[in-house]
Every structure is written in C-alpha cells, then in structure tokens.
C-alpha cells in the first residue's frame, strides 16, 4: 500500500517499483528495476524482444510478484486493466464478453453500456457474433473494449498491435489516443520504434532485463544518453 508520498512535482505515482527483479529458475528476466509510473502522458516500454517488457508490465499490474525487490501500488484505489499480447476470448458473443468484463468490474452490464463500448472500438456490427470467430484485429479491439469496460485509471497494453496489419494497427492506435485524451494513463510495451514515436510521452528503455534509460520521448529520440539506446535507434539488432 502506498502512503501519500509528496514528490517534487506533486504527482502521485500510480505504481512504484523498487529494485524489482524477476527470476524464473536460474534465468533472470528482470534485474533491479526502480521506477515510478506517474499519471499523465503515455509511458512506452521500449526494447528488443526478451528484454523483460512483458514481465515488467505484469509486475506493475500485480499479476505476478517480483522475486526480489518490491512493487507498491494501491490496488484498491487505483483501477487498472491489462490488454494481453494474445488476448483470450471467452467462448461467448462479443457483447457477452463485454458484459462479463463490466460485471467483473462491478459496473452495470446493461445493453446500453455494452453497445457503447463496442461502438467505441468499432465492433457494434458484430455484437452477437461468437467472439472466437472474429478476426485477429477485431479480437484485439474487443479485448481493448473489455479493458476499457473496467473504466481504468491506468491501462497496461502488452504489444497490442504486434500481430496486426497496418490498417488494424492504426485503428487501435487511434483508440489509444482517444483513451489518453480522456485522462487514462497508458503504459504500453512495443518493439516498434515508429509506434513508440507516435504514442510515447515517456520512454522506458529496457535491455536484457535492465532499465537502461528512462526519459521523455523527445529527449530519448533526439539525444539518447546511453550507447545501447543509440545503437537501438540506429537499428542495431544485438545490443
């Protein structure tokens, strides 16, 4: 539980990690990560595959516990939601999936609210279709609507467009922009530089489980302070 710690900019962090690490067996996936996730501009976790982005997101959401260090978050007061890289559709209609998410969040699951959420993500026409029969892009959007059904303050997205074509990617990114405009703090991972540029307010750059750079996007892209970041931006594969 987080006490109200007054910080320099008086912004209460939604989640705080202190020296958090995660090891599975002998493999260290995340090492000694310390950061605050503050409300406000979208935060993008950037880094090559295997850099620990997904694990960091899951720890921040509270889905897994760090094996070392700590994570602080007032789970009761701060509503969070998670969009998985490969979201799992419930074996029901699209509308029923939304209704389920609403009910799970303790919100009224009436037809109006469900329809509203479906329309937001452009799935109004397929409300009664079995969710598993939707296309990849439609399923991602449905999962996003499910996450939004929770009316979260902080929304975690794990490579949400990794398996989507550019068209579908644009649709999802547009929704993310809208969500940001409504005041939701978005924490998103990606390995796509272009997407990071389009979305980020702040960049958290990870390499092999270590937090290498944590800077505002403009600073990171124009003038990265680490060698690894420079090489990543230049397109190097192995850092």
């Amino acid at each position, binding site marked *: 539980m987080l006490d109200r710690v007054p910080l320099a900019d008086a912004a209460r962090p939604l989640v705080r990690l202190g020296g958090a690490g995660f090891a599975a067996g002998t493999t260290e996936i995340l090492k000694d990560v310390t950061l605050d996730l503050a409300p406000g501009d979208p935060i993008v976790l950037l880094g090559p595959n295997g850099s620990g982005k997904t694990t960091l997101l899951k720890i921040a*959401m509270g*889905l897994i516990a760090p094996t070392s260090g700590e994570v602080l978050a007032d789970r009761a007061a701060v509503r969070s*939601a*998670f969009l*998985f890289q490969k*979201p*799992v559709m*419930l*074996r*029901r*209609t699209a509308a*029923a999936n939304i209704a*389920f*998410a609403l009910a*799970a*969040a303790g919100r009224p699951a009436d037809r109006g609210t469900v329809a509203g959420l479906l329309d937001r993500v452009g799935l109004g026409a397929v409300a009664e*279709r*079995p*969710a*598993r*029969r939707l296309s990849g892009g439609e399923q991602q959007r449905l999962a996003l609507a*499910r996450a939004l059904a*929770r009316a979260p303050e902080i929304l975690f997205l794990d490579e949400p467009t990794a398996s989507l074509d550019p068209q579908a990617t644009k649709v999802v990114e547009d929704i993310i922009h809208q969500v940001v405009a409504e005041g939701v703090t978005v924490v998103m991972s990606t390995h796509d530089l272009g997407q990071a540029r389009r979305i980020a307010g702040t960049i958290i750059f990870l390499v092999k489980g270590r937090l290498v750079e944590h800077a505002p996007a403009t600073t990171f892209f124009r003038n990265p302070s680490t060698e690894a970041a420079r090489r990543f931006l230049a397109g190097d594969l192995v850092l």
Partner: protein
Amino acid sequence: MGALDLVLRGDPTLLAIVRLSLAVTLSATLIASVLGMTLGAVVALTRFPGRTPLIVGMNGMMGLPPVVVGLLVFLLLSRSGPLGGLGLLFTPGAMIVAQAVLITPIIAALTRQVVEDLWAEYRDELTAMQLGPAGRVAALLWDARFSLVTIVLAGFGRAAAEVGAVMIVGGNIDGFTRVMTTSIALETSKGNLALAIGLGGVLITLILALNGLAWGVRQWAERHAG
C-alpha cells in the same frame, strides 16, 4: 419380433419400464453432475496437500465396477446397515443412489481435466479482471459448457447401460424396480432371447436418441453463441 410389437402397440408394462429407467438414470445423472462438477472444479482450481493422490484416485474410480458399487450401497442401505432406517433398499431411491455413486467419479474426474485446461488458458485474463474464486468457477464452468455436456452424457450412458448395481439394490421387482437392463437380464435367464434382444434394441435406440438430441442442442448453441 416380440419387442418391436410391444413398442408399436405401446405396451403399458414396457412403457412403465422405460419410464422408470429414464427416471432413475436421469435423476442419478443430475445428482452426480451437481456433485461431480463442483468437486472437479474445486480440485482443478485449488492447491492442497494430497491433491495428486486424490486426482489419481478420482481417475481410477471412473472404472468402478457397477456390481461392486451395488454391493457396497446394498450393505449401506440394508436394514442391518448404517442407513437402514431410510428404508431405501429395493426401491427406485436405492437405484438412484447406486447409480449416482457410480458416475460421480466420472463426471468429477473429467470436469477437473476440462476446468484445469481451461484455467491454464484463461488464468491471465481472469486474474487481470480481478475475479474472486466464485467468479472464476462460474466463468470456467460456463465457458466449458460444451465439454461439460459431453461429460454429462458420458455419465448418463454409463448409468443407463449398467445392470449390476440396480439389480442388487433394486431387486428387479416386477412393476416397481424393474428397469430395461434388469428386464433384459431376466428375459435372457428365462430363455426369451428374442424378447431380450428386442429390449436391448429399445435401450440402445433410447440412448442414441438422447445423444442425438444433445448433439443437436450443442450444434444450435455453438452456432449462436460460439
């Protein structure tokens, strides 16, 4: 063939036997489904010491010999036994108990497998939605509904086909506890083989019809709710 004649004429004795068979087996299946699915779901989703031996035991008991179950329930319900006061022996109630005991392990073991597999798939999502244990069980059981229907049918089939348990605890009393399987056994022992085979045909047709109906319902449901 004698049995076909009886069926076409709507022979009341045969109809009474069919009605009783369905009532007994459907009741037993209902009870076993409630008990078995609850047990299966709980074991699938919780960790406790002795879980693995319990799962091995549940799986093993799927093969409980009906005649052994019949004998055990008989000893339980006999007037000289612990539950004799219920006066259930040689009544359809005893037959329902015996068949429920017989098929609960099947339903429990298969439900556990299905729920455990589904949980592996849904764990991240359901955890992210911060669902409590009751919510998780309900979500998993509903989403597993098609597999669960198949499981219930498997249990029903096993109960409908058995003769050992109902013979011992029911006593095959004419007009009271005589069901299809015990009738077939009786007619065989009387040498009325043609009639026995005919009754067997009726039983198989009944079971096939019920399975066909369930299949049809499942097809319709899948098309409408995936």
